[in-house]
């Protein structure tokens, strides 16, 4: 009986999140959902987000809700980098296909406050083949975090074991097996994905995938979803899986995996 009540509560949250997705007048953060995972698309300069990749954010939340105990907001939202709404929540995704416009001083200032308060930013390259967005984004991020530079992170990093045990990073394109990140005070705060993670998650109105996962197909897409879930769980749990209590379990499982 009690368990049924518990599930009812979760269902209730689902309704709330769905209502939010439909743009009703319900507050975005109802009780129990205020702290739900919420991937926000970061807007800078004058560039508008890619419509198909916006659907990836909803998909990302759906996968988090379906696979984990965490609540998530299903409605994709955007947030500008030059105002107080950026500081409303601790997670945002900055993606693009071309070199970004230089950040304005105001954008740099707000992003600096965001990072200083512990916000996490995922920088995702929509065109891994060109790589111009990632290169440009790193240049701009260097203005936000002048004392940090990106370093490669792999399966030694907590992001790769925050829910799934992952060996490598992936996305729509399998360009790099490692991510890059700026780590501040032991916390991975800015993650650079060169593989178009949002592209792997995007859905078209019919529910299909607008982008093909290359070269691994659906298996690669599943790995991309798992990485997205891991990033979400890292955002929500921080370095929980680095706790000593998990170490023997994770070492055993890593050891049992085939190379």
């Amino acid at each position, binding site marked *: 009986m009690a368990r049924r009540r518990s599930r009812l509560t979760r269902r209730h949250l689902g309704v709330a999140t769905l209502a939010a997705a439909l743009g009703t007048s319900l*507050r975005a953060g109802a*009780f*129990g959902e*205020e702290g739900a995972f919420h991937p926000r698309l970061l807007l800078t300069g004058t560039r508008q987000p890619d419509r198909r990749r916006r659907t990836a954010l909803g998909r990302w939340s759906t996968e988090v809700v*379906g696979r984990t105990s965490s609540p998530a907001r299903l409605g994709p939202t955007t947030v500008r980098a030059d105002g107080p709404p950026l500081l*409303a929540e601790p997670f945002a995704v900055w993606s693009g296909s071309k070199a970004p416009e230089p950040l304005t001083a105001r954008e740099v200032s707000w992003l600096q406050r965001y990072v200083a308060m512990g916000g996490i930013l995922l920088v995702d390259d929509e065109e891994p083949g060109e790589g111009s967005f990632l290169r440009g984004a790193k240049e701009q991020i260097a203005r936000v975090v002048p004392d940090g530079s990106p370093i490669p992170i792999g399966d030694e990093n907590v992001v790769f074991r925050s829910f*799934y045990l992952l060996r490598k990073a992936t996305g729509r394109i399998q360009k790099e097996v490692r991510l890059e990140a700026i780590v501040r005070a032991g916390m991975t705060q800015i993650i650079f994905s060169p593989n178009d993670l949002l592209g792997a998650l995007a859905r078209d109105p019919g529910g299909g995938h607008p982008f093909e996962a290359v070269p691994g197909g659906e298996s690669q897409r599943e790995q991309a979803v798992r990485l997205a879930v891991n990033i979400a*769980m890292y955002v929500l749990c921080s370095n929980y899986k680095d706790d000593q*209590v998990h170490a023997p379990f994770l070492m055993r*499982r890593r050891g049992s995996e085939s190379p």
Partner: protein
Amino acid sequence: MIESWAFSGDLERGWLLLAAALAFGSLVMLVFEVMRRGPSAGRLLVAGSGLLAVLALVLAVLRPVRVFERSSTVGARLVVLVDASRSVDLPADAARSRRAVEDAVLEELRRHFADVRVRALAFSQGEPSLLEGKPTSAAPTLGSDLTAALESIARATDEQPQAVVVVSDGRLERPGPDVGDATIRATTGRLQVPVHTVSLATAEPRDAHIRSVRLAGSIVAHQPARLEIEIGCTGGLGCGEQLVTVRELHLGEAPVIRASSVVRVDGGRGAAALEVTLDRAGRRILEIELDSPDGDAIPENDRRFVAVDVARDRVRLLHVAGRPTYDVRALRTWLKSDASVDVVAFFILRTRTDDVVASQEELALIPFPVDELFTKHLSSFDAVVLQDFDAEPYGLSIHLRRLADYVKQGGGLIMVGGPNAFVSGNYAQTALAEVLPVSLRGIPPDAAVDLAAFSPALTRAGRRAPVLEPVASLVGERWPEMPGTNVVGDAREGATVLLEHPRRHTKTGAAMPVLALGEYGSGRTIALTVDGSHMLQFSSFAADSGGRAHGAFWDAMLGWLMRDPRFEPASVELPRGCIAGVPTTMALRAMFADEGAEADLEIQRMGSGKTVRQVHVTFADGNGRTTADLGPLEAGGYTATVRLDRQGRSAPSRHDFACEAGGDEWADPRPDPTRLESIAQATGGIAVAPDGITKLPQPRATRVVAERRVEAWLPAWMWTALAAALMGGHWVARRRDGLS
């Protein structure tokens, strides 16, 4: 008026001696000169005129005076220092206590020193106090610091005594048993007078006792500490092997045995080193009990109640969350950033209905070891945080009684709101519901959450509570808007509500608590019915304070839970300690108390939890200090709880203390006449027994001059003229006798 004279009215003794020496030298030289010259007609004239000239010269230098004095002779001043410590309540012999002997000794001293101004002072700690009446009518005190009393007399600016008589059993804190004469002499400092001593007792009582309890180093929570216990058997009592047991006292709980050992007593002494591990930091009360043999004269000193301050290496905290959210993230981030917190976290990342689309081996998930955590390891934590955690699906329900007992024995508990907390988390009608500072009764499951947004409002207590001061200094009285709340009932009796719902009310009509603090047994609990405290860290609201308000809030919450003095609204102390059976005074200090502020003080006995005193006090002068008379208490451990009433009931402040019949004063009941003899010998006094008081020497009387007038015999110029004339006559006599 008595008339006398003096060589000089203004020259000091040294100058007088110098003048006399010069005159004597001159006369010697004159005699030598006359003798060498041999017989002559003018020899006698030369010698006589020379003698007169030297004397006149000396008198011209000194200028003698007449002194007129009006004076009287008064008896010498004698200070009698009477031992007022608890040890003199021990038996002196079969018939009388040492304090009763003091009565007789003081009377005999007054008789013996009838012509002496006797001032009787009682000494224990610090400065001695005037003894009015008999020693048996004075309240016993803890401590017997003779050194401090002698130093105080030496420092006094009034008339110094000609002698000091110490009446004691010799069982003194200072001077200690092994100090030398030089140290004792240094004790009296500039008080250069003999210290006579009267020993109240010499016979050792037939008694088994706990002579000392010492901690080898500091005691740290969760770490074994060594308790060194010394056992004594005196007066020929056969002790053999004795069982010593160490228990930790709790409020409302039976004492918990922490260690025990059989101690072998040889030559009247035995020792044991017991290892004890205390889980809770803060002040703890230990009861150390000795199974005494038959014939024990003083059973009260077979049991000691010792207050120990248990340090905390790090706060060890169990953080259990039902699902990952930004609220969980914020709390974990803060906990992990605090080096003084050792956090063990378990978050439910996956429910049974979640489809992870992967095998178990592909997951980084571990089973939630609920049974192991809440049975084997629970006592190792200082506090437990249940954040949005449903007790039922994860097997916590069967451990809720144990968790309640954990709090009762001193553990801390924080329940943080969310869809799976409080009533929604299946805590209603459980043992844990009784532990929380808010009631969960009568709340239907389908109305267990309120989805209406609101901003928590500070209560009157919340505005004044030190525990909310850090966050208030950053965000003022505003709180971010919360997207709903768990529904709870009234605050429990004794709990303090710091934040309340601005619109929602309980069934009794009171505003619904949002943040409440409470005590349960020896532990503390916090209920926070919202899941949005993370908005103090990361939100548009938090931006102004740079997100620091979240850390300030939780630092204070955890600090209060762990009894950090910074967050206690009040503190208490026992200025004169607590002696069983003797009226006890407690001093209270409130951090924030206006003039006229009131407070309730409740004294509960540890173990039974019975309230033995309830006192209502007023901070009359606005300085936040007052005292409360508790009357006599029995020996044991007690908990004093203070609740301030001025600005709404504050969070209670709790302080544990021990009350003993004799404490250290009775730990070793043997009198120590040898130490008294050492003191007397070192200061030039004599040591006597009560029947030898007549041997004490009478100090010399003192002459007190009421009026003194000085007149010169002759004016100074006349002394000078006389000296010049006589010097001239001597010169003429010498010339006539052929001398140069």
